[in-house]
């Protein structure tokens, strides 16, 4: 098993949270170190370009 997954399943969790703050708060209450990340949607044209790049591989 991949090391990070093993640590996760042992409860040694370090998390990032993108979206609702309440999920970060609840993880912190359980003693989980949680980094809150800023989420700003990309402009749609940029997303279309990225999708093309993803498809090219």
């Amino acid at each position, binding site marked *: 098993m991949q090391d990070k*997954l093993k640590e*996760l399943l042992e409860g040694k969790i*370090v998390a*990032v949270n993108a979206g609702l703050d309440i999920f970060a708060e609840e993880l912190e209450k359980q003693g989980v170190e949680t980094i809150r990340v800023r989420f700003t949607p990309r402009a749609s044209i940029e997303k279309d370009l990225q999708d093309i790049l993803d498809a090219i591989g």
Partner: protein
Amino acid sequence: MNYILAKVLKNTYKDSMQLMQVTERAKKVKGVIDAAAVMATENNKELLRTIKLLNEEGERANADDILLVVLATGRDEAEFALQEMEKFVMQGIAAPSYIDLKEALNDNRINLAVISVPGEHAREVALPIIERGISVHLFSDHVSIEDEVYLKKLAIEKGVLLLGPSAGTSILGGKGIAFANAVRRGRIGIVSASGTGLQEVSVLISHYGEGISQGFGVGGRDLSDSCMGMMTKRCIEIFEEDEQTDVVCIISKPAGEDALKELIKFIKNDTKKDYVLCLLGSEELDFKEKRIVQANSLHAAAGKSMKLLGKDMQFGSSLEQLLNQAKEIKRNIADKSEFIRGLFTGGTLAYESMIILQDGIGDIFSNIAIKPENKLKDPFKSFKHTVIDLGEEEFTEGRLHPMIDPTVRNIRLKQEMNDKSVGLIMMDVMLGYASNADPAGAIINTVNQSKSVPPIIAHVCGTEQDPQGLNVQTEKLKSSGINVFTSNAEMSFVAAAAFINGNYERAKIIARKYLLV
């Protein structure tokens, strides 16, 4: 004289959580009877209209505006409260610090991402995280099936988990992710396509003295023919290798035909541990292997998991106790009050309840009806026997899930209590991380305002270790005359038995199918 005042804050945005906190604080201001701070979406305006809190000023507000409304004991009190509410909004809630995702991912210790951004952006956020070999719990709804399949394949290639999309709950290494309960750790592993399904089974197992090794929420579509149980199988592989797990419980609504065949073949041929399959509403499956059993309810799934562990105990109440409760409720139902109304915050609990009720008393109307012909034309109006999933989109657009914000259910509860044709109201009360701080309090405040109340029954899904505390919540409900049940299936069975017109032989058959009696 009571007085309503409203104020519109043009082109101002705060998220639903912040606005709910403003509402809660406003309700504590002297002289305030009711208050609301919402984004003025059509949905939210309709709700305010229903409870007669939308005046002309409020009608003029647009979806980009914040609408503050207060109902107070007089004009001065209303004006003061409105000023306070505006202050609360402007002060804001202490903002935590955020960093960019790219910067965050430089921290090599990160092994989990919890993502709840709008569904259309979920792929762009999840992709770089999975590529870095980090597991994801994806709470977001409305992720396309193509994106789900793509991200799950990538996750498997990278040796990590993609739990979700639409994953309400996971329990990883003893930590509750998103909506989860503080349950015991133990030797039963759960793979669930349903958040409240995972909550219910893990809580019941914990209540009866066992515990959970891991609880993987794989998202509602993992056992569809598009996903073919990709992540379910990966989680099963993990459990097969895990020394802490002896029994694996799999929870889902009916699976896709091909996905189910594939899953059964996989469990029969590629596993050695004991398995409980709870595919709510699916047909009887035939297993020759004693180590693989089927369960028709979440209650039975928890009980049979315990049994496979060798814990042969009475799981749940006896049939006699349940039938006595049904008879007692029947005695308290007024003559012409012939319908049941179920007001649920947990979608799978609503679904399970419909399955049991339908078996006992026939057609159940719903916004998530089992039979297409029983789908409610207007989800805001009940018809005959009705079960509502208040977590569905039509109730949550522009506001928080009812497990966090009880407003929508309180409004519906008032309506049902005023309907003379209603003989019984049933509800789920979800405790745990991220749920409302006092869901039972919200219910009894509404119940206690009403002069005549039909019998009400509730199931509290939670543990004593949950932030809300099981006993405190249960006692609050009981103090208002509400009957409380340990499992959703027991509550639903008692409701069905109370309306089964004395045909208790039929009730016994239903009990044996869904409960371990």
